[in-house]
């Protein structure tokens, strides 16, 4: 299914705004969880689910689908919100996030919710799984399926990431298109203070990757970079997507303290009011 509807950039921006509002509502209801990362990733996830990915919300196991792995599992609220928006499940279910018996676990569990592709949370092991899937497809000569993976920048402190980076480069796993959410924050502070990652581009290139740097809060950039990535046939592709953590909500943006906490009631009202103005186009407050 999907991909038969082509959304305009303006439509995608509206979808992204809905996703951001849902993230705030979910986290408020849940009373715990991560705010900054999911908000910063909203543009990337709306680009993925509403333009880039070949997928079918009504048939999550569709054999010809592209794979999307979320390696930094703590950012899963953005995925849940995008999946609900795309029609994988009713939006009402978003409000069950992190509650007993929910399919929307605090960190994603594949067995609980169709469409998640993998279970993640402990950082650093998504890229290896992407390598394994790409390798299996290569063995079977499957050429039409892409493996997208979203990772965090702080996550790449993990050694497992670089084991996978070396492996993917060595094996020319060009069906992998990785997107790192380069938001420069991690729990203990700015990445360049906690554990500097630069020269980030040079590192990935040295491991045999084709690197594209983009504005990760620009939907058109994300779509274009993935299209370019699919055209690279010799190397795995790394998209370093520079994002603003907490993007869209002024008092959350770029503050690392928002990495792992949810908004309280007043903050949520403020955040949603801000998102609803949508660059001046005020939306109804009576939903």
């Amino acid at each position, binding site marked *: 299914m999907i991909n038969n509807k082509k959304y305009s950039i303006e439509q995608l921006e509206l979808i992204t705004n809905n996703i951001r509002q849902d993230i705030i509502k979910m986290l408020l209801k849940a009373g715990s969880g991560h705010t900054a990362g999911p908000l910063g990733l909203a543009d990337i996830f709306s680009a993925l689910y509403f333009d880039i990915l070949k997928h079918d919300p009504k048939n999550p196991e569709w054999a010809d689908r592209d794979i999307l792995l979320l390696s930094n599992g703590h950012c899963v609220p953005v995925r849940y919100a995008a999946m609900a928006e795309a029609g994988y499940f009713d939006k009402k279910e978003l409000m069950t996030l992190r509650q007993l018996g929910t399919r929307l676990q605090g960190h994603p569990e594949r067995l609980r919710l169709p469409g998640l592709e993998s*279970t993640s949370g*402990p950082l650093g092991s998504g890229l290896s*799984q992407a390598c*394994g899937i790409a*390798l*299996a497809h290569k063995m079977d000569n499957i050429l039409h399926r892409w493996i997208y993976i979203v990772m965090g920048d702080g996550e790449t402190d993990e*050694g497992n990431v670089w084991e*996978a980076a070396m492996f993917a480069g060595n094996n020319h796993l060009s069906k992998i298109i990785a997107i790192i959410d380069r938001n420069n924050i991690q729990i203990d502070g700015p990445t360049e203070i906690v554990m500097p990652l630069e020269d980030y581009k040079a590192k990935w290139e040295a491991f045999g990757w084709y690197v594209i740097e983009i504005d990760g809060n620009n939907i058109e950039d994300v779509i274009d970079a993935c299209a370019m990535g699919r055209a690279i046939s010799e190397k795995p592709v790394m998209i370093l997507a520079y994002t603003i953590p907490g993007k869209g909500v002024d008092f959350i943006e770029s503050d690392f303290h928002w990495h792992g906490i949810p908004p309280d009631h007043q903050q949520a009202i403020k955040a949603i009011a801000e998102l609803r103005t949508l660059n001046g186009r005020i939306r109804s407050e009576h939903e």
Partner: protein
Amino acid sequence: MNNNKLIVDVTKEEIQKAPIRKGFGIGLKKAGEQNSNVVAACADLTESTQMFLFKEAFPERFVEIGVAEQNLVTIGSGLAAGGKIPFVSSYAAFSPGRNWEQIRTTICLNDRPVKIVGSHAGVSVGPDGATHQMLEDIALMRVLPNMVVIAPCDSIEAEKATLAMANDPRPNYMRLAREATPIITIESTPFEIGKAQIFESGSDVTIIATGTMTYYALLAANQLYKDGIEAEVIHLATIKPLDSQTIIKSLQKTGAVVTAEEGQIIGGLGGAIAELAAENCPVPIRRIGIKDRFGESGQPEELLHYFGLDNDHIRLAAHEVVNKK
């Protein structure tokens, strides 16, 4: 004694020996012949783990990972997600020694049927010493939900276990030993994942052994018979899921139990049987195995005796529990 036609007479001088890992290598190649989805990945130990047999037969289905055990099992998870039946191998000290969390999250919680094979387990690794003598793998793997834990007693059983693993839909761990081990089973010895095998029937004491120690348990049973004690020897190739029914039935019959394993008794086979017995039929118990310490360098046989992992120690333990009844 030794009236079980399904195993060899262990008292014979000329008992044949072969490394258990060899059976894995042969079995993996056979599994590859039977099912084109079987693939193999190794962390720079292709010869030692015997994966080279598979690699030579199916180079396009073999994956060299390099010295990266975290990558080894997570690539395994990905291969399984891509529809493959991946066998991933290294030394047990490194896999599952180093990559436990990846196994927990990306294989067990994620329910991917990866077949983890840890070679060179136990003190019988010998001169390499404590760093390479993996003693905690049974405990590490047994505690994980969804995981199956297998420790074959010889190369023939390892071959059968490998073929069974290829057909099992769950995550599996199999531990292998380095040294040539006496071959005690024959082609017709039954093997089924999750099923304990009664190798010797007896009514005075139950000896439950796994992996390399089953041979010594059978030797001990012979000596005990001469001592006037009829020991029932249960070979437990599958430590998880535990064949509780067979074990409880035996314990109810004999009223005493000795466990034997080449690994830590804390959390290992000894731990498993103590838990089961305590809840279901408390009987006197002695556990033969490594007792909360690390190994050290030495010759394999020498180390087994040094750590009390032999028929003499099993025999003494059996006397002790029988006397406590």
